């Protein structure tokens, strides 16, 4: 590590609010239950709505009989595609609910029951009789599916196909080659708080108030305005506290549209909280990805060819293409490359964002293939990555604003006690191995507004429509404000989670702190200047200053801006049961300036735990017979339990990058998941000598791989 560009954070001392391990401002409210979430808004005369999911995977509704439902006590109404209000336009067709009789996938909402009580709404929903004309469905993704096509763009606005040089010829000529396929199954975000909204239409005032569990209230307000043909100032969307999202609340989801339909219909506040069993089909999932990777290298490890071809699915409702080949455009210096995506629209629920879309499945495949290449070369996989470190972004040729991947690998190797390739250990029936993988995540920035207000009593109020989905955003924004105002942290209070505040970006794409923080920084800096010019005591109304980062955030950077990281894992495989457990997990990140070590560590560790789940336990199976996801609750969808989570360490390089934002920060919410699954898979391979190329690494697969005899899956090299 070069001390002139980076130092290890633990040696840095914070003399300002930024960089201090400040506890969450709302921590006490949350642990005491005082924090109110979207479904917990106890408004007078509140009613409840419960949606009715389709029970066929493809077809058409031919009749909806609501007689039985409407006869139940306390039922206020049942909306169906035949009588639901017509919605205005939306970019997202998954929000065009109850607008026609087509059923694009099992679980698609076909009716909505509204009643005095939650139980009444649920009973009414159960009593709705829907008749379908069903058609044969297709939910199986495979390479060679006849419906596959190359889309124009993939998620994030990236081109679907990129090619540099002649990768096929370069691969054919390469003295060392790896040609491998990996599969990542569908995965679900499953935030702890389900998707929920309480909507309150005040017909007299012509105003709609919505408490929504979402990652950004500005976008929810704007989309609702279009759908319900209201002006934006007729709608207020609030999200004071949100119990996780991981991307699945990044845009409005069906629950909030249905809640608004219901309050407009019955004229009372209505709460709709999705049952966990509905969520697999209605709020998005990580699409399955099939990866074909070819790597060519010279005997010294220098990459000469890289081909990453991704096959994935989307729904019949909306094209969403997981950009899993995109990280290969960033990672390694290679002249001849092809990165491409093909997608087919199946009769499946609509996929969407899940923590580090693209990077997570893409880097699992790429970093597993790099490990296979290291095997083929007989080279330390850390050294192989160092050898191929890219001086400029391979796909664009742009210089990196900062890139400390090598430092992350070296620091991680030192901390972890990495010794390169060594024979696996055996403890009784346990095989023990270690693995490494790299991580990357892009720096995005989105425009935001903010307002800072100085009160005569010496306190400050900062207003920004940030959403704290559990990350600590509220806390770190106060730190940014305090430093820009040159005042103690406790002099600053924050107002967030309200669409009436200056517009804020979505808490997604690891952009939140940078995007809101930039606006907060600018507003507070402007207020500081205004206060400096002000003579005498402040007026009773105080003094304010605003900022809007639209111009600065939209400015195209000449730099390629990405966070990088390195993951190290030690795993054990039980030769009796095929059970794989992680013993140690360590990540080192280069993600710009870390503004709050306490909440940052929590983000990194949270991402790593989610990656551990992806590696070992999480999978959603598409039922061939019924067309829906088989795992529909947290007993069946196995997120890691405490017992699965070993000693986890997150460290970071204190990276100084002048080409980001005034705080010098990169996003940290997603990179923790990115390389974790590959590091665990690589460790399992090292432990057992067997390469499993399909996630998750469940006992059935591991046991089959451990059976004596020739290796079923084969091994490169």
């Amino acid at each position: 590590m070069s001390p002139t560009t980076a130092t290890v954070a633990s040696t840095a001392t914070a003399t300002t609010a930024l960089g201090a391990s400040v506890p969450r401002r709302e921590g006490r409210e949350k642990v005491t239950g005082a924090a109110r979430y979207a479904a917990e808004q106890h408004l007078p005369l509140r009613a409840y709505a419960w949606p009715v999911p389709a029970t066929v995977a493809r077809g058409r509704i031919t009749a909806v009989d609501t007689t039985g439902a409407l006869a139940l006590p306390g039922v206020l109404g049942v909306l169906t595609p035949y009588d639901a209000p017509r919605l205005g336009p939306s970019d997202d067709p998954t929000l065009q609910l109850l607008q026609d009789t087509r059923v694009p996938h099992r679980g698609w909402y076909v009716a909505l029951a509204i009643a005095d009580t939650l139980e009444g709404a649920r009973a009414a929903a159960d009593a709705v009789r829907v008749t379908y004309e069903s058609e044969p469905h297709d939910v199986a993704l495979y390479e060679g599916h006849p419906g596959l096509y190359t889309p124009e763009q993939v998620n994030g606005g990236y081109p679907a196909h990129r090619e540099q040089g002649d990768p096929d010829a370069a691969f054919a000529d390469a003295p060392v080659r790896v040609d491998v396929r990996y599969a990542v199954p569908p995965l679900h975000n499953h935030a702890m708080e389900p998707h929920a909204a309480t909507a309150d239409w005040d017909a007299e005032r012509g105003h709609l108030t919505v408490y929504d569990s979402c990652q950004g209230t500005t976008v929810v307000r704007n989309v609702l305005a279009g759908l319900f043909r209201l002006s934006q100032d007729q709608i207020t969307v609030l999200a004071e506290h949100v119990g996780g999202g991981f991307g699945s609340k990044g845009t409005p989801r069906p629950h909030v549209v249905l809640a608004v339909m219901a309050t407009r219909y019955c004229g009372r506040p209505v709460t709709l909280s999705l049952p966990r069993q509905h969520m697999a089909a209605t709020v998005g999932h990580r699409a399955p990805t099939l990866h074909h990777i070819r790597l060519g290298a010279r005997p010294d490890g220098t990459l000469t060819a890289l081909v990453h071809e991704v096959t994935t699915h989307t729904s019949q409702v909306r094209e969403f293409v997981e950009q899993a080949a995109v990280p290969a455009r960033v990672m390694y210096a290679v002249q001849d490359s092809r990165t491409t995506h093909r997608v087919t629209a199946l009769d499946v629920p609509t996929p969407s964002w899940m923590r580090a879309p693209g990077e997570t499945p893409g880097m699992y495949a790429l970093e597993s293939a790099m490990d296979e290449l290291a095997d083929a070369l007989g080279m330390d996989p850390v050294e192989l990555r160092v050898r191929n470190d890219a001086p400029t972004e391979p796909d664009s040729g742009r210089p990196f604003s900062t890139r400390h991947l090598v430092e992350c690998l070296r620091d991680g190797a030192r901390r972890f006690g990495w010794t390169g390739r060594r024979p696996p250990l055996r403890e009784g029936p346990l095989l023990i191995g270690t693995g490494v993988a790299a991580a990357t995540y892009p720096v995005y920035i989105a425009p935001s507004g903010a307002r800072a207000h100085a009160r005569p009593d010496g306190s400050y109020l900062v207003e920004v429509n940030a959403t704290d989905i559990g990350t600590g955003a509220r806390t770190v924004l106060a730190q940014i404000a305090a430093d820009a105002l040159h005042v103690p942290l406790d002099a600053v209070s924050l107002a967030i989670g309200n669409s009436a505040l200056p517009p804020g970006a979505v808490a997604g794409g690891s952009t939140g702190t940078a995007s809101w923080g930039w606006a907060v920084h600018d507003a507070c800096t402007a207020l500081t200047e205004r206060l400096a010019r002000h003579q005498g005591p402040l007026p009773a109304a105080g003094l304010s200053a605003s900022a809007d980062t639209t111009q600065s955030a939209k400015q195209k950077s000449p730099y390629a801006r990405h966070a990088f990281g390195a993951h190290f894992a030690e795993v054990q495989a039980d030769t009796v049961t095929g059970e794989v457990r992680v013993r140690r997990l360590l990540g080192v990140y280069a993600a710009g300036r870390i503004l709050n070590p306490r909440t940052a560590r929590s983000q990194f560790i949270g991402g790593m735990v989610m990656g551990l789940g992806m590696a070992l336990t999480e999978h959603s199976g598409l039922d061939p017979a019924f067309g829906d996801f088989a795992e529909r609750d947290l007993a069946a969808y196995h997120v890691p339990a405490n017992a699965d989570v070993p000693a986890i360490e997150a460290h970071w390089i204190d990276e100084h990058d002048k080409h980001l934002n005034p705080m010098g920060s990169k996003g940290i919410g997603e990179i923790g998941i990115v390389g974790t699954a590959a590091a665990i898979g690589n460790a399992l391979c090292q432990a057992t000598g067997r390469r499993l190329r399909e996630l998750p690494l469940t006992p059935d697969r591991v046991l089959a791989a451990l059976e004596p005899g020739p290796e079923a899956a084969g091994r490169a090299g």
Partner: protein
Amino acid sequence: MKPFGYVRATSLQAAADAYAAHPGSRYLAGGTNLVDLMKLGVETPGALIDVSRLPLDEIRELPDGGLRVGATVRNSDLAADPLVRTRYPLLSLALLSGASGQLRNVATTGGNLLQRTRCGYFQDLSKPCNKREPGSGCGARDGLHRDHAVLGHSEHCIATHPSDMAVALAALDAEVELYGATGTTRTVAAAEFHRLPADRPEQDTVIRPGEIITAVILPGAAAGSLSLYRKARERASYAFALASVAVVLDLDEGRVRRVALAFGGLAHRPWRATTAEARLTGAVPSPDSVRAAVDAELARARPLRDNAYKIPLARNLACDAIAELAGTHPGSPATP
């Protein structure tokens, strides 16, 4: 949730009477499974008869060295009981491998035996299930059935029983004590308490309408035997068994005097491996003889499209557990 009545029983007879008086009623103890199923609409009882406050929460020593475990003893209390830990360590291990700490604090001994399958098709009203709705078909057979049965299943049902505790009880030759509507008491062997699905998968157990589990009797004969419970699962806690095994072993000068072997996660009930037991009794439990005996048992398995892995998994678990108890473990110091 459908409206339902609620009766708090003050005595066993009052509970039985209330059951008879309320058609379609269910006994409520911990409710950790029943209430979930009511929310899903799988169970729609006319009334809940709350037996959780009946004086059935004692663990009592029996003259033969066994234990009488009241039906409402909580799973966590049973697992932690010093006599259980000393005399029947596999029962404690089995209990602690099930559910979560919070659930074990609430779930009862009787309720654990009466919990229903976690088959996703059973829990989803929009799909066919012969167990939930006789004659509607089995959704799991053509659907996803990685977790389902490989032994003793029928064309009507391929569900597994989810209990860990019941597997240990089957291996211990425990008995289930039942109180009937007419005030009579009978006992049923734990290994016979759960049924195979055959053509009546809606019937999980041999319990008769209105009967209440009052106790589980742990026989003195098994007290102090070598015993072990091992479970394979997808995550380290709070997951049902892909396969599990309960073993009780008595050795006499290197030979098996008595062995009890039961599998969990493989069938509609805890699978007492009588074929393997018969082969092993009197034999030297060498790795080869154990493997042959277990293979003979598992030769009866009929795996489905997605779950053939359960057979080698169960075999490995059983061979490993017996080897560990017999001291012939490949990893144990006694053998190279």
